């Protein structure tokens, strides 16, 4: 029997603010899973802390709501112990690029085959609107006592140099586009990152839904509003590394595109490189049966509860008469 969208929804009351961009991301994740017909029990959604951290509670798959900034280590641990799990990690920009930035960079180096989605709204919402790592320098959202004194981090560029092998940006109000990105991220071989622009209607009064729609951005010739978002794929941009020789050129265009902000903001796939071995493949190079006999799958005791591990070979090295 085909799985329906409702099969991925829980009864838990959703207490996000009305108009929150998180709803679009939640819907996109559920739609992607339903489209791919992934059995819910095979999926585990991990989250960090904050509004986005509540996401797993609204999705009827295994849901692990972890600690502030630590979602990636939790998620990687589970995926490495059981590579059969479909692992999706989610979190806010403060969670992933502030307190969790070290894990973000290290995850890139590993390239574990899973997905990481950042709900990027420039503010710490649940703690009442402090400046988050993606808020631009000098911005003063309404709850800030002073303009933001820190420069913003560029999540896509940071992910690129850290080693993530799939980089995309979505917009939470373009749910179908985001759903497609999530499906591509899930099928990507390696660590996929999606930076989702997600207006916080309560605390970010600068990068609002209206701002992204370009209601203030009037074309002087046509007198029409110009949405700030545009789709990379519609410009002929190709982020896929088809041949390892292209890596430098493909990386360079990611830097250039990811720096675009203001009146023109690209969304879509910035980069995809499946020539980098995943962490699972690196383990398999040393432990040949790792994928079939991963830590979670291994039998460790016989039916009488006796250990089946035999350390005689190692103990014999310790024998005094050796």
């Amino acid at each position, binding site marked *: 029997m085909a799985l329906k969208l409702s099969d991925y929804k829980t*009864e838990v009351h959703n207490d996000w603010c009305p108009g929150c961009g998180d709803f679009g991301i939640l819907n996109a994740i559920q739609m992607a899973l339903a489209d791919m017909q992934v*059995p*819910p*029990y095979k999926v*585990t959604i*991990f989250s960090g*802390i904050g509004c986005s951290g*509540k996401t*797993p*509670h609204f999705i*009827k798959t*295994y*849901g*692990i*709501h*972890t*600690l502030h900034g*630590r979602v*990636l*280590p*939790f998620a*990687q*641990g*589970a*995926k*490495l*112990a*059981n590579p*059969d*799990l479909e692992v999706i990690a989610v979190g806010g920009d403060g969670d992933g690029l502030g307190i969790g930035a*070290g*894990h973000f*960079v*290290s995850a890139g180096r590993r390239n574990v085959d899973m997905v990481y989605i950042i709900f990027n709204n420039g503010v710490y919402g649940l703690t009442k609107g402090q400046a988050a790592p993606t808020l631009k320098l000098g911005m003063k959202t309404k709850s800030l006592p002073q303009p933001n004194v820190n420069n913003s981090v560029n999540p896509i560029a940071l992910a690129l140099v850290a080693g993530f092998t799939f980089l995309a940006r979505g917009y939470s109000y373009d749910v179908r586009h985001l759903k497609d990105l999530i499906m591509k991220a899930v099928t990507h071989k390696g660590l996929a990152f999606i930076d989702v622009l997600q207006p916080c209607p309560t605390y970010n009064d600068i990068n609002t839904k209206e701002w992204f729609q370009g209601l203030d951005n009037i074309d002087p010739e046509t007198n029409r509003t110009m949405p700030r978002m545009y789709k990379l794929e519609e410009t002929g941009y190709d982020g896929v590394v088809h041949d390892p020789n292209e890596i430098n050129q493909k990386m360079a265009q990611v830097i250039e595109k990811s720096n675009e902000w203001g009146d023109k903001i690209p969304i879509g796939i910035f980069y995809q490189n499946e020539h980098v071995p995943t962490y699972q493949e690196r*383990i398999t190079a040393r*432990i040949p*049966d*790792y994928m079939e006999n*991963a*830590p*979670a799958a*291994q039998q*460790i*005791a*016989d039916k009488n*509860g*006796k*250990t*089946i*591990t*035999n*350390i*005689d*070979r*190692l*103990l014999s090295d*310790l*024998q*005094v008469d*050796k």
Partner: protein
Amino acid sequence: MEKTTTNSLSWVIGGAQGSGVDSAANIFSRACAAGGLNVFGKREYYSNIKGEHSYFTVRVSDRPVHAHVNEINTLVSFDAETVFRHFEDVTADGAIIYDTDVVKTSLDETPTVDDYASARIKKTLQKAGLGFTVQDALEHAKRRGVMLFPMPFFQLLQEFAQKANDPALSKLTRMVNVMALSASMAIMGFDSGVLARAIQFIFRAKKKVADLNVSASAHVYNYAKAKFAGSNFAYQLKTRPIGANMIIVQGNQSSALGKMVAGCRFQTYYPITPASDDSEFLEANEILDLNDSGKKGSTVVVQTEDEIAAIAMAIGSALTGARSATATSGPGFSLMAEALGWAGINEVPVVISLYQRAGPSTGLPTRHEQGDLNFAINAGHGEFPRIVLASGDIEESFYDTIKVFNLADRYQMPVIHLLDKAIANSVTTCKNFDVSKISIHRGSMVKQITDKDKGAAGNFLRFKLSDDPISPRVVLGTKDAIFWNTGDEHTEEGHISEDPELRVQMMDKRMDKLQVALREIPDEDKAVAYGSGDVAIISWGSTKGAILDMMEKLEAEGTKVKFIQIRLMSPFPSELVNSMLKGVKTVVDIEMNYTGQLGSLIRQHVGREVDFKIVKYNGRPMSLDEVYNAVKRIMGGDAPKRQVLKSGA
């Protein structure tokens, strides 16, 4: 002639870090063990890669030994600093083997002897009217009766190169460690064949190196044998038949071996002394043999970006059902505190091997302390259940490692296995590990759930409230058993809840598991009493060895004391300890920390004040003699309430 002591001595080799002190000590220990003798060895070293002074103490005996002693009977040196650092500790009937090329070296030309040590040594030499060279230090020892064995190592190396017809060999100063060791074996009359076999074994990975060292060793052994033929050194080693099924094992191998047998298949770590060896041993042996199966097992070891990631990954892995652990020391464990609480509230079985070292902060990063007892018991904000088990020696640590995984699974909580630098960096002979004893219990982990495990909404109740505080557990990926975890207080399904009544029920459920644990855990895992007497020593962890050896020494003099080794540090086995302390008149707390942390626990849980404290916090493990002297003082009635031990270079 002095009396000869056969098969009971304390042997020390020292040298610059990186000059092969460890290899030489390993050869010595293995040779003695292969010669049917018992050894206990411990390694001391600086936080340094090359150049600073390191040394290895090995106590050898025909009886089982569990601790080192302060005094040195045979001091083996091949540099100036080793003589300066240790000449005062050599017994009057002992010996110093030294390099004739360094005798003119003065303390001031030995920059690795820091100002504090230098000032102390100078004071000693000055008092004797001596100068500050190696020669003066040797003279100081000689006046006390110490025998001196001059060895021209450079010249011997040249001769050896000539004999082997390979002038390049004279540059192989790396072999001086083995040469010095071999000289000591010659004066102690140790069997050169057994020695050669031990050298072969230690260098077994490099045949050429092994052969070369064996030849160089023989050359020096014969030289020393001939030159010091009439010396009649008071300490002799005679090989004996080997005891049945004995092994020689290092403390940084035992817990890792235990993890393999326990079925730990996922371990994370961030590099830290003295815990890294545990992970590296697992990684070096990541492919595992299995009984009656063509299949192999394997351990995935992940080096993480920090200790926060280390514990978080281990927890993530534990959620999939893989037995998972992380190994660290104090600074790393400090970083793990928040995630420890997450494992507590989400009832995740995860094991933390906590190899204590001297704190606070970086402290003495390569030195020993048992300063993290309170922290292990209390780390993390809020209140959540955990189990803390402390091993007393290398052999115990092997079996305990299997137990901690069983406890974690049974009670679904984080378990901290307390180990320390003294265990990690010591070597001992003991009975071979008996794997047949070992059972694996995975508690209430189930492969599939039944309808009664489901709530009204049809979801699995991972944190089901019932008479049994321990709920059935499934792992991520189980069909039809979806659950949620959150660091927030939660419902039975695992969703966030701030309901005040549910909060109380969930807190009670989690904390009640500790009562179940206290009921079920066998007494021998809670506390072990040795001997009997009016005076009871309470202690925990690696002080066990010195205390046991001290008791043997006291008993030989006709004095008996009781020793209560506490093993389960949390939840505290109050009832058992209380019963063990019944009838005891004097309680003596022996611990490697400043405040006497176990003493406070006893007061807290048993309501009894300890009468005397013997503490040590200079970074060096307790020796048999200092524990003996301190306890003797208490027995003699002239001891202060708190004695601070200070031995060790």
